[in-house]
């Protein structure tokens, strides 16, 4: 069914359009004046001024891997992030924790864990989907590199960026 949009009849003044044009001009000039007089200040002068201290708690910067309070890598290579990642930036090769390791109980760890930062869209789905709370979008946003290879974050780099995250998961502790 076609839907008819009713158009209101314009008065003569409105038909001239000039008052509306003038009103528009007034709005824009007001903005300009406010910026000139320093009343508005929204632009941050990067890199002299940085967001770092103002970043909100949930800021989505570079995805990183974290270790827990025991220094154990939280990631168990469940590959859910690899599955959920919309641009398929994550590649994981799972491995088995061998006998004799303190965390043998955990059984699995990522042998290789790569995030291609050229592909990453910082959507945070990996963080959201992670059942072990091992992957976090930290506040790093200035991710640059000179080669494509450099932009693929390997496991050590991911842990270096991620650091330690305590709490949250107690499952792999001795009595759990």
């Amino acid at each position: 069914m076609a839907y008819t949009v009713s158009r209101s009849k314009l008065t003569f003044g409105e038909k001239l359009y000039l008052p509306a044009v003038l009103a528009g001009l007034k709005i824009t000039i007001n903005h300009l004046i406010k910026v000139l007089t320093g009343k508005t200040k929204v632009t941050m002068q990067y890199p002299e001024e940085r967001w770092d201290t103002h970043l909100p708690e949930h800021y989505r910067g570079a995805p990183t891997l974290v270790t827990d309070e025991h220094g154990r890598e939280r990631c168990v290579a469940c590959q859910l992030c690899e599955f959920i990642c919309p641009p398929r930036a994550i590649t994981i090769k799972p491995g088995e924790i061998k006998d004799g390791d303190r965390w043998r109980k955990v059984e699995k760890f990522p042998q290789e864990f790569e995030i291609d930062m050229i592909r990453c869209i910082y959507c945070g789905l990996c963080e959201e989907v992670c059942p072990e709370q091992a992957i976090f979008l930290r506040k790093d946003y200035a991710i640059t590199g000179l080669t494509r290879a450099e932009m693929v974050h390997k496991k050590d780099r991911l842990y270096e960026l991620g650091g330690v995250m305590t709490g949250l998961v107690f499952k792999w502790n001795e009595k759990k």
Partner: protein
Amino acid sequence: MSDPVPLLNVQIDGVWYQFPKGTRVIEACAQAGKFVPRYCYHPKLSSPGNCRMCLIEMGMPRMGPDRKPELGPDGKPVINWIPRPQISCAQDVAEGMGVRTDSQLVQDCRHGVMEFLLINHPLDCPICDQAGECELQEFSVQYGTGGSRFREEKVKKPKHVHLGPRVTLDDERCILCSRCIRFMKEVAHDDVLGFASRGSHSYLTAHPGRVLDSNYSLNTVDICPVGALTSTDFRFKMRVWFLKETKSICTSCATGCNTLIGSRQNVLYRQTPRENNDVNSPWMCDYGRLNFHDVNSTDRLTEPQIRHLSNLETASWTAAISRAAEDLKRFQPTEIAVIASGRMTNEELWFAKKLVDSVKTSNYDIVPRTGPADDLLLNSIRNPNTNGAQLLGLCSDQPGAKLQQIADGVSQGHIKAVVALQEDLTAAGFKATDLERLGAFIVMDILPNETTKRATTLLPSASFAEKRGSMINVKGRLQRLNRAIQSPGNAREDWEILRDLIQHLTGANGVYLIEDVFKQMAENVPQFQGLSLSKIGDLGVSLEGVVAAAPVTASA
């Protein structure tokens, strides 16, 4: 024809259905579209009724004083409901039976059982290989409550137990459904598994001094509804949701078990059985199941090669095919021999036969391959398509009968050109030094071996998982192979290589679709009359008039 099975009237969730006598209640519900969740129940095994997941409300018709069912206003029997929930997996349907699969009580039963199963479960889905095909996960989502009220410590049990050479057990994940125990006892006839300890501390284990080393041990992994039993080979390799599943058949023996090939990004990860009650039920032997690692080998032949003096050099397909054709043209029919393989598909064998015909030689055969059989699935004939080779005329009733004669011919020098298709001739009675003296030695294979080293033209071909085609199993059943992954490098499907070779030899126009190859066969081979590749279907068709090539072993 036996007497028709009488149909019984059964009321399921208020609707009356008819089921043949002998149908289990749980199956009847599923057929009526009211799936009843289950853990311990497996249609091919006995019913111990221990998981209590399939509890439903059940009732029988109320009997009047005249011992006849009382009829309600709708003319249907009035049902006397049993106050307690009943398991549906151990009972057959009865006339006038009533079933409720989604009443309040049934739902509470399912919530209860799900909660109980999960309180001592480690909930380690992130590392568990079963995740994604785990019934505990699925039913928990569908029938569970979504939360746990369990605040206590879980029961600790043995983890990563090497139950056998191919099976690893995690007892904490085990829900003690006993499917594996029953499989080993009832199907594999190797009663090696059992429970130890009791109550919540019960755990699965092999009998003292025994290991789960049956050739059918990996079927316990298949039927394990949770991740307790895992395949040591597949363990921690890939999450199942990444796997692309391709319906195919096992090519490790003449039984031709139906399979699902799990692959991701052109890598094979596992092969699991696919139910076909005419061939393998839902089972498969470990030998066949794990016999795919060659496909992933880094040694795979990827480029056609031509011999220049003593070196094999990489060449284009055009160059390699024309070199092979030119080489063959140089010899008389009696100087040429073709060794085909019982591992080739019908389509490949069809072209192999055309090749034989076009060079007009009578020196051709296949290499027989045998091994010990068992009384379940594994056949003594280890070539998957000997029947096809016979049917298409590449060997006599006794495969390999001419092989020694050809080998002698090569040795004595009156056979000067040999085409070896997917066979290592040095393992089939040919001497490596003889092969080196051949004027033309055209070899088609997937992996390097002593034969490929001596080829004058080496043609890399596709493995069983990389091609389509059909095979005939030991019982004369025509079944399909499907392509799961792409061939590495420039390797091509065998039938295409053979077609091109024949085109170079005879100039005849070839066919360009495997469907057309089969069509051509169907027109010329009476047994294939009226069939096409698509008509074979996923479960295959039984061919009439194809006699078993060798003693058939009993199968499940």
